[in-house]
């Protein structure tokens, strides 16, 4: 195997009392990947990242980051990864520069290198000029990028980001992703979590996490291809009737309301059959057409299969 493994989990279990936050997780992230972990709150995303940076000890199993076990060598792991928790660890009452310098000191970045490294990080992240400003006065998007800079100041090869874009406005989100892609180009392995499935589409690989379990793990195209059948968009009258007759069919695995239209997960022969069936039931079909399945469709499908 030519690819170097950046992160590996084997039989990883983390319990909090009776609650199982991570349930026998096995996964591998190759060096240089953009690996996105998606799932709702409480799925175990944050716990996974915390285990990977040595903040939380596995109850069972182990995880290795760049070959170092989080169980046996947590300090070695900490020195090699950058971590941006959900609640970023910036001090509001320090200036941006002071925050950067603090993290540089904590990771013992050579003093001579710090100045140039900090400047170039700020420039790359489009933060030049904020050095002297008090961090609390920065906008949410800027703070997020500053947190990223702090996590990068010691040049980690693996960067762990916990929901970095939650609640961030779309403009900042775009800029943030641009910054992440720049890091990706520099060969840094990115492992990030997000509650947004549309963000997962940008990953090299996606892990769907649900109640501590890995529901699926593949590249986005593979995930979409794994959905049995197809997804149809439906606009029909009377709508409630259309929904109820569709739900009665065994080859219709789900009907979901999306504003003024419905989304139908269909595993039957062809769309024409379904249209004729609807018209036969007295439904006036305005639109019935296949649409590309989203990762949300895949996730929903996996969850309803599991249920």
């Amino acid at each position: 195997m030519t690819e170097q493994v950046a992160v590996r989990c084997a039989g990883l279990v983390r319990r909090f009392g009776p609650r199982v936050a991570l349930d026998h997780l096995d996964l591998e992230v190759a060096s240089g990947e953009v690996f996105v972990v998606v799932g709702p709150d409480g799925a175990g995303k944050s716990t996974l990242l915390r285990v990977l940076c040595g903040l939380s000890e596995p109850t069972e199993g182990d995880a290795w980051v760049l070959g170092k076990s989080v169980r046996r060598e947590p300090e070695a792991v900490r020195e090699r990864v950058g971590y941006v928790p959900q609640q970023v660890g910036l001090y509001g009452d320090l200036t941006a520069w002071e925050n950067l310098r603090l993290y540089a000191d904590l990771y013992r970045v050579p003093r001579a290198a710090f100045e140039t490294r900090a400047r170039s990080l700020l420039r790359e992240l489009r933060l030049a000029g904020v050095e002297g400003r008090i961090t609390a006065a920065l906008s949410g998007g800027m703070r997020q990028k500053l947190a990223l800079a702090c996590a990068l100041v010691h040049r980690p090869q693996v960067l762990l980001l916990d929901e970095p874009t939650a609640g961030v406005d779309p403009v900042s989100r775009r800029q943030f992703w641009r910054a992440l892609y720049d890091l990706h180009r520099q060969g840094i392995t990115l492992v990030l979590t997000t509650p947004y499935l549309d963000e997962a589409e940008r990953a090299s690989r996606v892990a769907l996490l649900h109640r501590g379990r890995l529901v699926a793990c593949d590249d986005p195209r593979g995930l979409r291809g794994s959905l049995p059948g197809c997804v149809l968009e439906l606009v029909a009258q009377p709508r409630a009737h259309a929904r109820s007759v569709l739900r009665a069919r065994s080859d219709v695995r789900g009907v979901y309301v999306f504003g003024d239209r419905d989304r139908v997960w269909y595993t039957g022969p062809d769309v024409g059959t379904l249209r004729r069936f609807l018209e036969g039931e007295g439904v006036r079909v305005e639109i019935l057409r296949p649409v590309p399945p989203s990762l949300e469709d895949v996730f929903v499908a996996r969850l309803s299969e599991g249920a």
Partner: protein
Amino acid sequence: MHVPFAVRAVELTRRFGDVVAVDRVTFAIPRGEVWGVLGPNGAGKSTTVRMLCGILDPTEGRAEVLGLDVRRDREAIKQRIGYVSQRFGLWPDLTVRENLEFYARAYGLPGAEARRQVEGWLGRSELAEWAHQRVAALPAGFRQWLALGCAVLHRPAVLFLDEPTAGVDPLSRRRFWELIHHFAKEGTAVLVTTHAMDEAAHCDRLAFLYGGRIVAQGKPEEIRRTGADGAVLEIQTDRPAEALRVVEGHPAVRDAGLHGAAVHLVLRDPEAAESVVGFLRQQGIPVHSVAAVLPSLEDVFVHLVEALEGGA
């Protein structure tokens, strides 16, 4: 008296010291409509909702809920609305049923009716198996169901939901929206806030809130058709990140962003599409397909905000 709109705000403004949290916001929500308020954290969504619920006084402007003034008739309003706040008002040491029963009583439902409503909600929301569990032990997704239940037991005519689907898994989220539409069909006006762009598709009508101001409002399709100025090209490629970087310097491209795995390019001139695609290929970016598409809501939002900030 016939009240055409369930909720109506005119030049509604709220300041906290020097900070203008909500800035002259005007809108109206008819009965039976699901109205989405989209915006990032700190845009003023929660402040707007709190003013409409009568728990926060507007600094200026006025607002009516079911024809009642939010300043003068706040208690009357509270009786007729349901409100799910972002910090849910559930007691972790009470059981699911106890929480529901408390709210039923708090809204003054008579005993038999209260029991009927509580049972009804337990069945409908799949909370039944959790009824005797303490809320502290309830998974996040179910808490949102409970919070919604507590807000609808008294059959409110207007429902205010502040980020109700945050942290809910996609399957529950779809069911959640279905239920919201069910309420709307029965004539309830629903105001939902969210910061997830992809949820906008669930709403009948949208308002984009940014920096306390409404930067666009209308039906999702309308906003997409009219909001962004310029044509949008959707490009499928294996190397979206690189495509993005290459195309950024091109004079015909006003904006570029990732959409899932695809790249959206907003062009100043629709005629330039061919030359941009040619440029990409020339730079060694494989382009699998090109399609002129309606801008996504995110495209529109980014465009509006950038126009606003550029002009400011």
